[in-house]
């Protein structure tokens, strides 16, 4: 981390670390986020260094609050940054759309980290549409080095235009690593002065109508700046023409020969003149971009408006796919059109290999909760409404504890809907952080509207685990020199109008099963708080007290119920009987409680 704070040097950085460094060099005074892959590591750097560099940083309760916190800073004259994963911008979009009307005084940069190929998300939506939708200028970095440079450039641009600026990255940019040159940081300004300006900032209809015209003026000026921006440039040489942006540029630059490339770093609004001139010089231009044909459609419009007959190849012509991220191999689809570099013949093997999906960790308390819930629900069954977090992995066999997931907080809303639209029991699972993020309105709704068939199980593992163990209101705050106490879930649930609420430790399988039974029998929406700290976090903190369990091979009858029903990754099979892996077992005791022969015992 010291290297990241140096005044100069050339160091290897993750895209997300380079973004954090860009904020430091730009003198960004306020930053806020809700963690989400692939943007999470930016927060990981900031919660460590913010107070050292004089920045205020917070994990907000959700993305829209993060956006609002950053917006307030920017209208007070403090450079600010709100960052989130692509679907996070859906949550923040209400604030985003109006912020583009009211504008900013100091630079405000919003980062959306998209996830083509859905490595760790629920969709691969293309957030470049948000730039067009909200009329917010957008930059798209390609490499970690560009991540740092474009963050700095985005602040300057935002201040020139008095508009927020969107920086759009993708997984292969956020999670790429490369060499980055450091420069001396600008002086950090954490506090500003808010000057009242209700005529612009209070969006009653009369004001908003004026703001709308200002917004259109700003985006017109942005288009002029895009035209002369050095971030949009032509590189390479050859008769073929390519227009590209983001990580796709790296594939085009390295794997295609004999092509001139128009690389768009300032990609919304497009530099229309530059595109027009490029088209006029080429008989054929290929647009290479991941996901939706955002640039391609604009290029087609520019060609149409200017009467240019250049052939435009891309997704609309069926040459390139819309689904999933691109790789160098994607470009092979263009082999009849462009000169693709030839590589060696790849090898392959016919042997059948087992699949290896991500799983709940050994000793994960969610496994115990799922196991006990299924037992309590019994043969009658239930609709399992799950949510966004590690516990979405409950979808896999043998748990099969997931029937529907839409978005953060949707478990409770959908369970409420099933409770009314069917006569089936609806069991919702939500994590502690997700509950604070988006679950509370759903729960108030369930109490208010009497969704009596709803049982909500809050999987309180005392952290935001999936994204790297960030704190949340339930854990309290202890970073950046600010401390706050944990917010207790049970009283909050009661305050939402829920009469039945019980907190249980899921490592006690009998207790949790009994609690879920009572909740299912209760006439009214009921909540179980299944509380046990994430062992992975405890391990990181050096606080995990391991117990060692062993299988008594004499007592074990080889029924393998522990494997087939509990399926902990610390269990494997040795000569027909289960074997516990000493390095991965943490001693949660789940398998021992599941064993009908009491053949699994504490050894140490």
């Amino acid at each position, binding site marked *: 981390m010291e290297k990241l704070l140096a005044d100069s040097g050339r160091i290897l950085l993750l895209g997300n670390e380079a973004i954090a460094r860009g904020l430091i060099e730009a003198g960004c005074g306020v930053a806020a986020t809700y963690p989400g892959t692939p943007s999470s590591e930016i927060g990981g750097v900031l919660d460590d260094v913010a107070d050292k560099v004089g920045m205020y940083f917070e994990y907000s309760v959700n993305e829209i609050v993060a956006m609002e916190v950053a917006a307030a800073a920017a209208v007070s004259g403090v450079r600010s940054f709100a960052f989130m994963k692509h679907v996070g911008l859906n949550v923040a979009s209400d604030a985003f759309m109006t912020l583009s009307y009211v504008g900013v005084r100091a630079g405000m940069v919003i980062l959306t980290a998209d996830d083509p190929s859905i490595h760790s998300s629920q969709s691969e939506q293309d957030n470049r549409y948000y730039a067009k939708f909200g009329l917010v200028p957008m930059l798209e970095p390609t490499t970690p080095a560009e991540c740092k440079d474009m963050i700095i450039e985005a602040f300057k641009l935002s201040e020139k235009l008095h508009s927020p600026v969107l920086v759009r990255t993708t997984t292969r940019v956020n999670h790429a690593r*490369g060499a980055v040159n450091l420069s001396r940081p600008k002086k950090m300004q954490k506090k500003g002065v808010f000057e009242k300006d209700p005529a612009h900032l209070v969006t009653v209809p009369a004001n908003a109508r004026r703001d709308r015209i200002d917004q259109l003026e700003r985006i017109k000026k942005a288009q002029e700046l895009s035209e002369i921006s050095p971030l949009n440039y032509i590189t390479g040489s050859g008769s073929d023409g390519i227009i590209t942006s983001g990580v796709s540029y790296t594939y085009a630059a390295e794997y295609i020969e004999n092509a001139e490339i128009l690389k768009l770093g300032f990609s919304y609004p497009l530099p229309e003149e530059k595109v027009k001139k490029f088209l006029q010089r080429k008989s054929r231009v290929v647009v290479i971009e991941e996901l939706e044909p955002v640039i391609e459609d604009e290029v087609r419009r520019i060609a149409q408006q200017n009467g240019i007959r250049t052939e435009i190849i891309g997704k609309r012509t069926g040459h390139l796919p819309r689904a999933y991220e691109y790789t160098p191999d994607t470009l092979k689809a263009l082999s009849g059109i462009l000169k693709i570099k030839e590589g*060696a013949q790849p090898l392959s093997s016919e042997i059948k290999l087992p699949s*290896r999906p991500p799983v709940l960790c050994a000793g994960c308390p969610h496994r115990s909760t799922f196991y006990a819930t299924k037992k309590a629900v019994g043969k009658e069954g239930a609709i399992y409404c799950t949510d966004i977090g590690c516990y979405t992995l409950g979808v896999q066999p*043998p748990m099969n504890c997931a029937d529907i997931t839409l978005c953060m907080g949707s478990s409770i809303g959908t369970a409420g809907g099933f409770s009314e639209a069917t006569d089936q029991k609806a069991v919702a699972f939500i994590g502690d952080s997700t509950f604070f993020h988006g679950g509370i309105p759903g729960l108030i709704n369930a109490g208010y509207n009497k969704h009596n068939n709803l049982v909500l199980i809050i999987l309180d593992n005392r952290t935001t685990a999936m994204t790297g163990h960030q704190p949340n209101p339930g854990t309290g705050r202890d970073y950046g020199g600010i401390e706050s106490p944990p917010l207790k879930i049970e009283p909050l649930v009661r305050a939402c109008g829920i009469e039945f609420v019980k907190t249980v430790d899921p490592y006690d399988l009998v207790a949790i099963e009994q609690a879920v039974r009572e909740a299912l029998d209760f006439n009214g929406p009921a909540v179980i708080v299944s509380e046990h700290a994430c062992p992975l976090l405890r391990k990181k903190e050096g606080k995990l007290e391991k117990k060692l369990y062993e299988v008594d091979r004499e007592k074990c009858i080889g029924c393998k119920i522990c494997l087939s029903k509990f*399926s902990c990754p610390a269990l494997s099979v040795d000569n027909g009987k289960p074997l516990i892996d000493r390095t991965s077992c943490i001693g949660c005791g789940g398998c021992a409680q599941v064993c009908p022969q009491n053949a699994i015992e504490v050894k140490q």
Partner: protein
Amino acid sequence: MKYGIQLVGVGGQGVLLASTVLGSAAVSEDMDAAMSEVHGMAQRGGSVQCTVRIGQDVLSPLLSQGEANVLLGFEPAETCRNLVYANKDTYVITNTVPVVPVTVSSGLEEYPAVDDIIKAVKSSGVAKLIALDAASMAKEAGNAIAANSVLIGAMSAVPGFPLSKEKMLSILLERVPAKAKDVNQKAFEMGYEAALKCLSPQ
């Protein structure tokens, strides 16, 4: 010169650490590096892949199929699964110790015999194979957890590898806890020697 290494394994095996050692060593030698890593959901015990490309003007964080100079597998099934990155001249280094996925232990799928996996790797056309029991070697060095250092050592012995053995070792040791330095150094050396032996004409 552009040199590509595909590192594959299972979440928690140290694939990420090995790729960072490579990248840091390259940057400290004033080379360019373009790498890609897996974070988030994919790390929960699932298959993990990292790409490291070093040399002049490398930009793409991903390799094309068949492009890897080295395929470094931390787990035999994962090595086999990712053969598509290798060509007949690629150095394939694999740990022979399986990590059995839950899909297998819970009885839904089967894990082939390790010998069959190694045979499959060879018959796919791999001519330069270094197969090591990295866990036993690490145990011999003092701690099974140093298996990744065995593999990093083995990679450093590959003919034409663009980073020196000394550089790789020193960057690796910067990244392990002080009390584990001796064990990791020993594990690295054992991997290095074992790879040389594998590659020498019999």
